[in-house]
């Protein structure tokens, strides 16, 4: 599982084995596009269904209409999907081509040549200049920098905007730049993988380049594809991974498509309609065969043969199958895709979700799941960088037992500390030295002379900045020599080793040589539990522990600083081990950690730094609003328990003692954890009856045990608890928690900003990334990326809610209009001898589904039932979306009933008004069709809450278009409906009939809607009235009977859905007096009361489910 790369060897076999540097992100090629794309499209059930119908229609014996009426839309829909794919693929091809055609300098046959990037082979030496993009993964062998360093911007790879230092391997040090392109050697490296943080390889140079030793290579010695070279004149490197095998290429993957709850519901309803259709087909098929045998043979003019073919019995059912096939609207998929695309665009365009600090707009990467935003029940949030700004400021410190900054809250202004610095107190000097050099920060001298620090970690940045303010200025770093300016004197330190930070070790150290007195010292900083246990035996660490405790309670991030003087030989002995560990290929990280451990002991703790990470603007308000909307919050953080709790308190996550109660689950062993869990569960179920805000806190260790051994009980707890704080959790635990909630059938939204949140974000139903300071990694993996946490409120309440409402309307309406025309066909079959005659002609049927009824409903994408402000003020209204009140079997039954009613109205009126001498088939069909179209227009009008000019245009324009199109068709002599529409429009009876259909169809619906709206209003209606009539919003208080009616309305849901959501929220709506009062006054008491009711009801549900 290794690859051997022979450097600069044009004859070596590697050239053939490994691919060239042609990048290809394309899904298709010209040849396989059609079959592959068709195959993908036909793997969906709906498409298979439509294809089957279309194929059946080719059999002219059974087809009621021209096959074109299905093939047309089908091909259209497929063409749209395919061209979208093709367009995307073409764009990928273009960007690939751009990258592939880029010219770079490559060494060939010992001569530098200007070649296209795609011709680079593994083993080639590539030369890059400043600001060049790296074309493939390279191992550095030379730079312009005498120290062998270069700087790299890796934003395209991991999203981090700071510059990274990369160094040439020690073996290549000092090779003259003229000789570089003659270099020969072999690199032993692992097979391509996607880990951009690891590269465990070895390099051996061939003579004449001395140093026949194996030289270890790490990620530090590589420059990876898509990075940019900065601040370095030139570099050269050996290509090790090329084309799609680079680290970047390997990490590209096709994300799993996510299915929204709504899609699942639509699929379910489609399934139900399909079953209904089959039943109709069977019933009508039997009836048709019976009628044929008993009646039709008597009707001599039909001339039924006495003996039919063997499949005779099937003919009539199949005809009805085709006739009823339009029950499942072929247009729904296209309409939904269009709508969803537009929802996503609305999110991208939203001016109120632009982060004005960075000018970064919100972005919807995944265009298909907007509705899910409106149905979120759980939000799992990261803390650092998500709730907080991740803008670290050094606030306090404790040096050798003395607390600085306690009075003013800012140690930098503490006179005692300033005095101590001025007087040169050795403790303080040591402390500051560690702050200034124990890091990986790169100082950059700007043109104005000010020093800018490029740091990977915000904490380090804060520390270096603070040290600089305390006159310990980290001036420059040239190679291994660090220059520190303390007051007037300039100090130099030589960095010997960097023992890097890993999340397992939780500390980092540097070994430096003090150039003044040649002493070697080890400087460490890290979490208290990673430093204090390793202090020298005699040292008292109690004050430090207390300091950590105290700071953590204030919500500050603490770091413990320590140092130790090393003896010369101790260091040399250790450095050999370290070197060996660094060049292992197997388990290198673990080996290094082990070796580091050998040096990091007997430390002398110097003090504690406390860094404040400020809350982002609007976080408490956002959390409060979203919790009012019935969303439960879990905080998952890698931070310490105390810090996490403090942050949680300060951002309204939990409430302080009298109102809130924190339940702790802890323990080191299984038994302890289990007992603790039982206790918490018990308390939880008792307190649900009390108006108390209960949250549980669990740390990573206990969580590990819980997830492994007590999953069931923990799931119960998860269902009970509206709030949870999980601290010290690893990225994979975060993902596990998401998984756990998802398995309880909750809609989860994970929000985070850093690389450690990526797994959680990908796991959740909706992943939201904050494009923050920890880089763009999370934002890239996420479905939505936003600039600040507070935009989440708008994302969910405005965009999510509108999307849900609109999709609910669109999907149900699509079924309604298809059912309407289908019912008319079914009724017609009763008066046409159950023979499966189609009343409508093919053109009308096709146009009905594709044009007449699709366009008006598409503009419902602009519909707003409530204004954004109202929704923000009354976030409770989101319950309707969460509980799926607008799209569920019972609302669907309403639409089903409406289509049945309208079909009856249209059918009865058309056949009675156009009876006797006017009963010509084409005319009756057009009268019925006009009736349908008019009803459509009014149904859309009635269901639209707000009319913009576009809606008027679409609804009434469509009606006009219907006549224009039919006039055009009626003018074609060869068409079946030649002159029909002109004749009809000239008849007064046509218009009288159409208006009768509209009045008879819409009158009762309007009356019913009005009755419900006024006497059985939902909360949405109440708010609408309040908003539009300008009445007092507190009139919400008058809607007592409302929940009951809702309960009735939703009750059929419980039969089909295992999870009875209506019962969850019903109690909350019924105790709306409390909730209502809380809108106005905003007193937290009522708010929590209603919450506790909620949790009690969810508990009862839980019991029920069990």
């Amino acid at each position, binding site marked *: 599982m290794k690859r051997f790369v022979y450097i600069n060897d044009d004859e070596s076999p590697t050239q053939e084995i490994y691919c060239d540097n042609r990048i290809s992100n394309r899904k298709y090629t010209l040849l396989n596009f059609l079959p592959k794309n068709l195959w993908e499209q036909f793997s969906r059930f709906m498409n298979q269904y439509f294809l089957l119908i279309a194929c059946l229609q080719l059999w002219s014996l059974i087809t009621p209409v021209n096959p074109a009426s299905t093939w047309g839309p089908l091909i259209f829909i497929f063409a749209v999907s395919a061209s979208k794919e093709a367009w995307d693929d073409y764009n990928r091809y273009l960007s690939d081509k751009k990258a592939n055609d880029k010219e770079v300098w490559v060494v060939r046959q010992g001569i530098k040549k200007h070649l296209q990037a795609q011709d680079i082979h593994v083993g080639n030496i590539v030369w890059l200049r400043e600001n060049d993009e790296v074309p493939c993964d390279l191992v550095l062998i030379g730079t312009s920098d005498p120290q062998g360093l270069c700087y790299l911007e890796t934003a395209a790879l991991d999203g981090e905007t700071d510059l990274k230092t990369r160094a040439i391997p020690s073996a290549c040090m000092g090779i003259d730049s003229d000789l570089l392109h003659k270099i020969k050697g072999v690199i032993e490296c692992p097979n391509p993988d996607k880990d951009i943080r690891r590269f465990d390889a070895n390099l051996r140079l061939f003579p004449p380049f001395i140093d026949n030793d194996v030289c270890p290579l790490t990620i530090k010695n590589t420059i990876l594809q898509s990075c940019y070279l900065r601040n370095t004149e030139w570099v050269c490197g050996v290509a090790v991974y090329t084309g799609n095998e680079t680290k970047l290429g390997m990490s590209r993957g096709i994300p799993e498509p996510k299915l929204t709850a709504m899609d699942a519901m639509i699929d379910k309803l489609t399934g139900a309609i399909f079953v209904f259709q089959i039943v109709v087909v069977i019933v009508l098929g039997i009836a048709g065969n019976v009628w044929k045998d008993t*009646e*039709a043979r*008597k*009707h*001599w*003019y*039909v*001339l039924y043969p006495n003996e039919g073919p063997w499949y005779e019995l099937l003919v009539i059912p199949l*005809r009805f199958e085709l006739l009823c096939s339009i029950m499942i609207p072929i247009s729904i998929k296209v309409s939904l895709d269009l709508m969803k695309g537009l929802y996503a*665009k609305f999110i991208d365009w939203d*001016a109120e979700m632009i982060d004005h600090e960075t000018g970064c707009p919100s972005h919807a990467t995944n265009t298909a799941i907007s509705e899910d935003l409106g149905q979120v029940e759980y939000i799992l949030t990261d803390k650092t960088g998500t709730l907080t700004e991740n803008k670290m400021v050094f606030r306090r410190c404790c040096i050798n037992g003395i607390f600085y900054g306690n009075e003013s809250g800012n140690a930098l202004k503490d006179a005692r500390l300033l005095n101590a610095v001025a007087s040169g107190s050795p403790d303080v000097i040591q402390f500051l030295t560690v702050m200034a050099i124990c890091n990986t920060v790169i100082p950059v001298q700007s043109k104005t002379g000010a020093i800018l620090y490029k740091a990977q970690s915000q904490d380090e940045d804060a520390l270096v900045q603070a040290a600089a303010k305390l006159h310990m200025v980290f001036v420059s770093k040239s190679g291994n020599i660090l220059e520190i300016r303390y007051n007037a004197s300039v100090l130099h330190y030589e960095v010997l080793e960097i023992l890097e930070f890993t999340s397992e070790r939780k500390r980092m150290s540097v070994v430096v040589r003090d150039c003044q007195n040649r002493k070697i010292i080890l400087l460490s900083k890290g979490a208290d539990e990673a430093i204090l246990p390793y202090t020298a035996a005699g040292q008292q660490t109690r004050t430090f522990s207390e300091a950590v405790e105290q700071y953590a309670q204030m919500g500050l991030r603490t770091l413990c600083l320590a140092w130790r003087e090393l003896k010369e030989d101790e260091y040399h002995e250790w450095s050999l081990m370290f070197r060996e560990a660094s060049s292992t290929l197997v388990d290198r990280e673990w080996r290094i950690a082990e070796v580091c451990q050998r040096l990091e002991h007997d430390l002398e703790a110097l003090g504690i730094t406390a860094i404040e990470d400020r809350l982002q603007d609007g976080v408490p308000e956002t959390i409060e609003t979203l919790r009012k909307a019935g969303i439960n919050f879990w905080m998952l953080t890698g931070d310490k328990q105390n810090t996490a709790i403090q942050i949680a308190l300060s951002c309204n996550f939990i409430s302080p003692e009298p109102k809130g109660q924190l339940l702790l689950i802890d323990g080191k062993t299984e038994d302890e954890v289990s007992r603790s869990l039982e206790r918490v569960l018990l308390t939880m179920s008792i307190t649900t009856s009390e108006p108390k805000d209960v949250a549980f806190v669990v740390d990573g260790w206990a969580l590990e045990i819980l997830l492994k051994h007590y999953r069931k009980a923990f799931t119960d707890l998860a269902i009970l608890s509206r709030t949870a704080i999980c601290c010290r959790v690893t990225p994979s635990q975060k993902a596990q928690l998401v998984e756990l909630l998802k398995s309880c059938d909750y809609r989860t939204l994970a929000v985070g900003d850093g690389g450690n949140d990526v797994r959680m974000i990908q796991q959740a139903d909706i992943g939201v990334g904050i494009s923050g300071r920890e880089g763009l990694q999370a934002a890239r993996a996420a479905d939505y990326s936003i600039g600040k946490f507070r935009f989440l409120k708008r994302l969910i309440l405005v965009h999510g809610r509108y999307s849900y409402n609109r999709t609910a309307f669109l999907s149900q309406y699509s079924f309604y209009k298809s059912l309407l025309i289908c019912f008319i066909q079914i009724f017609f079959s009763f*008066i*046409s*001898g159950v*023979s*499966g*005659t189609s*009343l409508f002609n093919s053109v009308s049927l096709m146009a009905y589904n594709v044009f007449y009824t699709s366009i008006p409903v598409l503009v419902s994408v*602009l519909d*707003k039932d409530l204004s954004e402000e109202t929704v923000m003020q009354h976030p409770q209204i989101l319950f309707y979306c969460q509980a799926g009140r607008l799209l569920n079997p019972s609302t669907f039954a309403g639409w089903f009933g409406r289509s049945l009613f309208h079909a009856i109205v249209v059918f009865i*009126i058309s056949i*009675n*008004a*156009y009876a*006797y*001498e*006017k*009963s*010509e*088939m084409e005319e009756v*069909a057009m009268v019925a069709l006009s009736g349908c179209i008019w009803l459509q*227009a009014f149904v859309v009008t009635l269901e639209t809450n707000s*009319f*913009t*000019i*576009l809606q*008027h*245009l679409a609804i*009434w324009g469509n*009606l*006009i278009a219907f*006549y224009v199109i039919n006039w055009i068709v009626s003018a074609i*002599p060869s068409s079946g409906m*030649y*002159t029909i529409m002109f004749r009809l429009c000239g*008849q*007064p*009876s046509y218009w*009288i009939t159409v208006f*009768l259909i509209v*009045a008879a169809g819409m*009158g009762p619906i*309007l*009356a019913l*809607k*009005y009755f419900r709206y*006024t*006497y059985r209003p939902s909360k949405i209606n109440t708010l*609408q*009235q309040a908003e539009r009539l300008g009445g007092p919003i507190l009139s919400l208080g008058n809607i007592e009977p409302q929940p009951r009616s809702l309960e009735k309305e939703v009750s059929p849901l419980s039969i089909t859905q295992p999870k009875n959501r209506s019962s969850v929220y019903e109690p909350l709506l019924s105790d709306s007096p409390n909730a209502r009062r809380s809108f106005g006054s905003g007193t937290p008491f009522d708010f929590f009361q209603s919450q506790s009711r909620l949790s009690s009801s969810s508990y009862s549900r839980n019991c029920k489910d069990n």
Partner: protein
Amino acid sequence: MDVDGGSTSSDSTRVRSIPIRSGQCKAFLSQFKQQSLPACKPVLTPAWVIAIHLLLGFVFIPIGLVTLHASRGVLEIVDRYDADCVPEEFKGNKVSYIKDTSVPKNCTRILKVHKYMKAPIYIYYQLDNYYQNHRRYVKSRSDQQLLHGLKYNDTSSCKPEESNNGLPIVPCGLIAWSLFNDTYTFIHGTAELRVNRKNIAWKSDRDHKFGKHVYPFNFQNGTLIGGGKLDPNIPLGDQEDLIVWMRTSALPSFRKIYGRIEEDLEADDVIVVHLMNNYNTYSFGGKKKLVISTSSWLGGRNDFLGVAYIFVGSSAVILSLVFLLLHVKNPR
């Protein structure tokens, strides 16, 4: 009305947007992107809903009355003759009567005019329980052949009456094959009443759907004779009975025009109809009726629209009163 409203509003926006086009366009676009287009948000207030229903009632009831009046103004004489025209000895077996070519099919009916009927008076024949909309039946025709005649060869759609003795049939298909062939002559007083049998089919059908140079060929030559025969010397475009017949009806009970009487009939006039009862409806229990009817601006006599209008209108008024009452008793 709504259609007009829609078109004018779209026109007016276009007109408005021309002068300050770019600015307004941009503003419109940004409003669209922010989902903040100015919108009108109607509320279902009691006043509105009650007014709409009341208005509906007040518009619909008068229209209903007018419509009903127009329908009632139409005079029609309907005479069912299929049963009575069967001679006594065949009453038990009507099918054998109609199938027996040796039995004379003539029959005389006497119709009495009750009220003065103003010309033009239309003569229809009405068939009940006759499924012209049956799938086998409606599909069995070839529009291309009707227009182009023998030049058009593909008559597969006409099955099972597409050819006979290996020769194509013109006009092919079940519909043409089952052409209605009862004939009527009307005696008014002593003289024969002139019945105009021209221009009874749609002009568009005569001109564009049925060929002017397509002559019946090989029609009703098979062993199984369906309905009427056609004069092979008259082109299809002039065979108006066929053209009328081939406009299939959507309902199992329908009337088709037979001719027009172009003189007024006085009250108490007696019309004697000599008819040839050729067409077989006995095998499936279909009824045959002769209808003589005047016409109004709404067409023939059909009370449905008027009654429905009055019903819908009065329901709307009642509903609005109920809402009004509810609102007064229980104002929100």
